[in-house]
């Protein structure tokens, strides 16, 4: 029996949708929430591990075994840990450079090339000024390496400021140019005549090598990195230049009206960015490989982009993330012993970046009831 007309409101629930039922919930973008929370980096690492576990499992391996192997390889032994630190040095230096440039939205992805030319310039010192004392050869290598990296950065900055060319493309093209130049010198003019036809420069002498800690491979480049981080922090925090940089980063239009010369700042940050990567390259040849050879960088310049992003450009965060990613690279090598390619670590890096940028944005959405 149907209820009498006019009696529905007493027996049926009120009309849904307009009056705040659960299905009238909706996502709403809150543009005031620009500060990203501290937990997105951690969450993105966890989610990336989960995603890549799917690919590893699909390949017939147990993700747990693989990850455990990676972790042990990177942090489990004292040898592994110093290796991780050795890898963290170029990541810290390049990541710092990228962070400086990113402060004012200059997208330097050319750290790989800047590192390579830094390594080449440092090697040039050993080849053209062979008999210098330890102090002078190291100093000269450092100066040449920094200058070469800075010059490579300048070659990205000037097309941007004076010709309006997107720095992403320029810096990346220059990476390929630098790697080809490296191939040229190690196969050509700088090839070691006593090297059994192996492509590479002659071994550096002890005077041309950076001091190391005890019997490990951990070299003084770590100090360069830490000092650079300290200077970065002090500069950004307490100098006029740092203030201007923060202002441009926060609001470029306002900065321009305030009379800040943005083009000049772009050139300065690219010089610093390239110079730091150049130091990283110098430290690699002089502290780790002790000669110039092909594949001097296993993609440090690209990994450093994620290092800088994951650290949210924070100096202390940079130290933590570069150690984490140094571990990821070493862990990537250690899975090769169980027959897996080391590209596993690159895949993880890409996935971390995906989740990081997604997490930073998801946090800006709020669940709201429509009125």
């Amino acid at each position: 029996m149907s209820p009498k007309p006019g009696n529905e409101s007493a027996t049926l629930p009120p009309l849904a949708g307009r009056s705040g039922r659960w299905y009238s919930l909706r996502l709403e973008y809150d543009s005031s929430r620009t500060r990203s929370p501290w937990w997105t980096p951690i969450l993105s690492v966890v989610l990336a591990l989960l995603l890549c576990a799917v690919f590893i499992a699909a390949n017939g391996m147990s993700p747990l075994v693989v990850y455990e192997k990676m972790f042990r390889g990177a942090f489990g032994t004292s040898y592994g840990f110093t290796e991780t630190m050795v890898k963290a040095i170029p990541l810290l230096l390049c990541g710092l450079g990228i962070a400086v440039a990113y402060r004012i939205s200059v997208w330097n992805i050319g750290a790989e090339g800047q590192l390579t030319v830094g390594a080449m310039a440092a090697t040039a010192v050993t080849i053209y000024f062979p008999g210098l004392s330890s102090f002078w050869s190291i100093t000269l290598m450092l100066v040449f390496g920094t200058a070469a990296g800075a010059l490579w950065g300048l070659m990205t900055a000037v097309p941007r400021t004076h010709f309006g060319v997107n720095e992403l493309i320029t810096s990346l093209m220059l990476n390929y140019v630098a790697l080809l130049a490296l191939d040229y010198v190690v196969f050509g003019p700088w090839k070691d005549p006593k090297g059994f036809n192996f492509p590479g420069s002659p071994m550096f002498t002890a005077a041309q090598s950076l001091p190391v800690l005890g019997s490990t491979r951990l070299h003084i480049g770590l100090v360069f990195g830490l000092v650079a981080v300290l200077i970065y922090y002090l500069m950004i925090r307490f100098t006029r230049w740092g203030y201007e940089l923060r202002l441009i980063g926060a609001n470029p239009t306002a900065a321009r009206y305030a009379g800040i010369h943005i083009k000049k700042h772009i050139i300065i940050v690219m010089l610093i960015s390239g110079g730091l990567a150049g130091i990283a390259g110098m430290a690699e040849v002089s502290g780790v490989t002790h000669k110039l050879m092909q594949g001097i960088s296993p993609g440090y310049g690209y990994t450093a982009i994620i290092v800088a992003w994951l650290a949210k450009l924070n100096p202390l965060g940079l130290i933590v993330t570069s150690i984490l990613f140094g571990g990821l690279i070493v862990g990537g090598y250690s899975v090769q012993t169980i027959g897996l390619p080391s590209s596993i670590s690159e895949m993880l890096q890409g996935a971390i970046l995906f989740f990081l940028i997604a997490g930073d944005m998801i946090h800006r959405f709020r669940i709201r009831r429509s009125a």
Partner: protein
Amino acid sequence: MDFTTQLLIAAISAGTPLLLATLGGILTERAGIIQLGAEGLMLMGAVTTCIVYIRSGNLILALLSAVAITALLGMVHSFLCVTLRANQTMSGLAMTLFGSGLSAYVGKSISGIPLPGSLPKLDLAVLKPVPVLGELFGRLDMLTWFSLLLVLVLHLLIHHTSWGLHLRAVGDNPATADVMGIRVQLIRYCYVTAGAALIGLAGADMVLAYAPTWNEGLTAGLGWIAVGLVIFARWNPLRALFCAYFFGALDSLGFRIQLLGSAVPSYFLKMIPYVVTILVLMYLGYRNRNKPSGTPESLGTPYIREQRF
């Protein structure tokens, strides 16, 4: 065959993957979304083609799966950039990193194995007697024909249909488009996905027509050159054709100079495409400094509809 015909053929075969990737980039960016993941998408397209082709022996299936996988990645990119309004530059970089890592990982097992076949060619008996063209057209494969057709179709689509008008509106002024009743987000999703699939097809073409075996990092920056070509071509499919073939010619010219026994080390010849990309972009930037560059006006800015409470 004379030198010119040889160079033309080489330019077209090296230019086709560039053309496909550039067209994919144009579609994506016309909708207002920056696509910097081209390198990773091409690698994923290439590795998928190789794996499926080697395992199944079916060319069509291989091409379809390459398109499907990269379209899926394109959807991830659109989800991040359109729905979540994430940083488009970083999303593209993540795509490139993830794509090169994943392709190296899954491609390890088939690395160096030659593909079971290559792309079928169209036999045009009618054109055979024509001096240069006959030789040329007889050598074009299926994907090259497809890319040529696509140039025409996209040109007509973008400039002469109402769909194209909607696309341009979404890329130039999404707010107005929204007011006009155009579904901005849906259109962006569609074109970003389609663009990514085309870039994936470019990767497939690289392995099928150019280097018939998978190697880690096989694209060697070609995806990035395609990102540059999108700017050269000023987001215009017809110009993309000429730009891509110009670069194809440059690429093979270096190789040919090497074959002729030039004294210049091959490393410097290999630098030509990269250096020329920078120089041409600088020239275009200088020439167009006071003119509109043809950039979709809202490229890179996520669209946020005014909120209603």
